[in-house]
């Protein structure tokens, strides 16, 4: 790397300065200056003329910033560096554009949901509460969602894990390729199609009543490929040495998988399953097709209509009164909290285990 061996330049030659070699660059404070001009100019314009609200001001600020920054760069550094600075600005802007909706969604849900969220909201159902009057709650929906999600997990997690085990530990050749391909494609099955399938297959054909169980089956269809994919990834990072050490002790393959491979990947598998649960908790469409809406508590998932948080929100939104809209936002907040809790548990599990086992972290 070092150029120490190069002969020293003759003293008559003027050494080019670093600046001349690299060309003129903008000073480091150029960026803050341009940002200030952009924001300041937009605010000033907003005060002098009635500009169209936040969106308009933001657009003006961004344009002012870009004109200042890129124009300055163009005059000092030339076209290539100006293009580079433009690209950097735009790429950073895309990140902001992605985060703004997320913040706005969370902010709106918390702000509007907190107004109705209290203990009563969590512990009463909508039984005998008219859509116009305030009060009532989503206890019935909370119980329904918990049962449906638990049943869906009971179905999907074992099957998903077994599929992943086949693909990683046993699968070779054509069969494995076909299964792997279909698992990938299954991730893309629209949730409403899963609902239609359970309705046509289990409800119409096999006579399963429209119930919480039917909803759980539909949710399981959506969970299966996610569980299978994440488990597969976790199993693949378990070192082959572990398996070979086990075989060397004369332990059969299936014992090796259940006692060595699965435990070392357990944190990742649990995390993956929790994330899959979080993904299906907010699903609404398949539930609309496979259960009937109800305003009362029904703890029995096998028969009768059963509510759930997403269908509760849908129902309250459809009622369209001030009170029911407030309840819809309350339901949205509970749903977000529920999903956040699942995500946090998933993260915690992964964090908790990584220190001890080393394998299976996401």
């Amino acid at each position, binding site marked *: 790397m070092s150029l120490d061996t190069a002969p020293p330049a003759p003293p008559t030659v003027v050494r080019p300065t670093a600046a001349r070699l690299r060309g003129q660059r903008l000073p480091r404070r150029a960026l803050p200056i341009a940002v200030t001009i952009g924001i300041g100019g937009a605010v000033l314009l907003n005060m002098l003329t009635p500009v169209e609200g936040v969106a308009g001001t933001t657009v003006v600020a961004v344009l002012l910033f870009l004109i200042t920054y890129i124009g300055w760069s163009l005059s000092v550094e030339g076209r290539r560096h100006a293009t580079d600075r433009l690209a950097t600005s735009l790429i950073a802007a895309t990140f902001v554009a992605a985060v703004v909706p997320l913040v706005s969604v969370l902010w*709106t849900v918390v702000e509007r949901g907190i107004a109705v969220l209290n203990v009563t909201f969590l512990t009463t159902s909508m039984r005998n509460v008219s859509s116009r009057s305030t009060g009532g709650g989503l206890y019935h929906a909370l119980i329904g969602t918990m049962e449906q999600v638990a049943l869906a997990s009971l179905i999907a997690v074992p*099957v998903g894990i077994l599929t992943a085990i086949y693909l990683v530990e046993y*699968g070779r050749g054509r069969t494995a390729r076909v299964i792997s391909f279909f698992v990938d*494609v299954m991730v893309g099955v629209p949730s409403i199609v899963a609902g239609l399938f359970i309705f046509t297959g289990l409800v119409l054909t096999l006579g399963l009543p429209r119930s919480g169980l039917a909803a759980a089956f539909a949710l399981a269809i959506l969970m299966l490929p996610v569980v299978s994919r994440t488990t597969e990834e976790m199993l693949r990072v378990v070192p082959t040495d572990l398996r070979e050490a086990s075989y060397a002790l004369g332990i059969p393959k*299936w014992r090796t998988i259940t006692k060595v491979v699965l435990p070392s990947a357990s944190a990742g598998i649990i995390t993956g399953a929790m994330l899959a649960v979080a993904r299906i908790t907010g699903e*609404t469409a398949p539930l609309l097709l496979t259960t009937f809406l109800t305003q009362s508590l029904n703890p029995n998932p096998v028969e009768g209509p059963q509510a759930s948080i997403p269908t509760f929100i849908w129902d309250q939104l459809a009622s369209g009164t001030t009170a029911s809209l407030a309840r819809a936002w309350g339901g*949205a907040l509970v749903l977000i909290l529920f999903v956040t809790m699942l995500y946090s548990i998933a993260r915690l599990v992964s964090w908790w285990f990584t220190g001890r086992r080393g394998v299976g972290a996401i």
Partner: protein
Amino acid sequence: MGDRVFRAATLSAGLLMVAIMGAIGAFLIWRALPALSNNSGNFFTTTTWFPDQTPPVFGIAALLFGTLITAAIAVVIAVPIGVGVALFVSHYAPPRIAKPMAFVVDLLAAVPSIIFGLWGLAVLMPNMGGLLKWLDNYLSFIPIFNNTTGIYTKSMLIAGVVLAIMILPTVSSISREVFVQAPRINIEAALAVGATKWETMRMVVLPFGRPGIVSAAMLGLGRALGETIAVAILLSALFDINWHITEPGGNTFAANIALKWNEAGTNGIPALVASGLVLFVITLAVNMIARLVVNRRRIKEGSA
């Protein structure tokens, strides 16, 4: 012995996955047939939906149009932004905060569809009115931005924007995965010969990641095509083919099924199942193409 049983159990779980995919197609076809056979309209070109009237007249033309247009709007918005986010997280952000930043964008995927619908209705729609009016005032020579109704709510453009936000994490996370695999040595070589960062991205990272971007766009498209509840909340559910995307109107397969389900009668349900079958076939095709693009790349890498 135990080994054989265990292997059989895992294999049957795997085969169950394939069987479910087959069963979805089979049951949808079987249950859709009665409606298709007594439809007195043309299933593919009729733009009305009266399956329970005698004689039943219904067709998917308007649904197909609305589904494709809203999904296309979503992809057109989400792919550039998603690729930008992926570049930012993989090559621009300081390594220490890149991971939390990626996590924040992925959080968008955790927000349930119905909450995006609520948000779109309560926050986005009122705030987009000005923009849509501006498009109508200054860009109405472009036919799609022309608004003849003077109403700027519940349009396909608004639904498309919400769909774009929903598929953004899909697009950005898949693109990101490919971008971080761009060979370090090529990137350093480009920087060493004096390329700017953007030139490095344009000449090394983006060409390397092109198949990833294509499949990310396809998978995002697949998600957008099948989204139900947010779209059902945000569209006016009219049965027409209207190119003016800022006017109220539009309908999609998924939204139509959710909205019509409870009022559908003996012929209405099979008709909705038939439209669901079309949606299933389209998303299946889109996802298969996306997977084939990714897999072909994987095989290439393996042999290299």
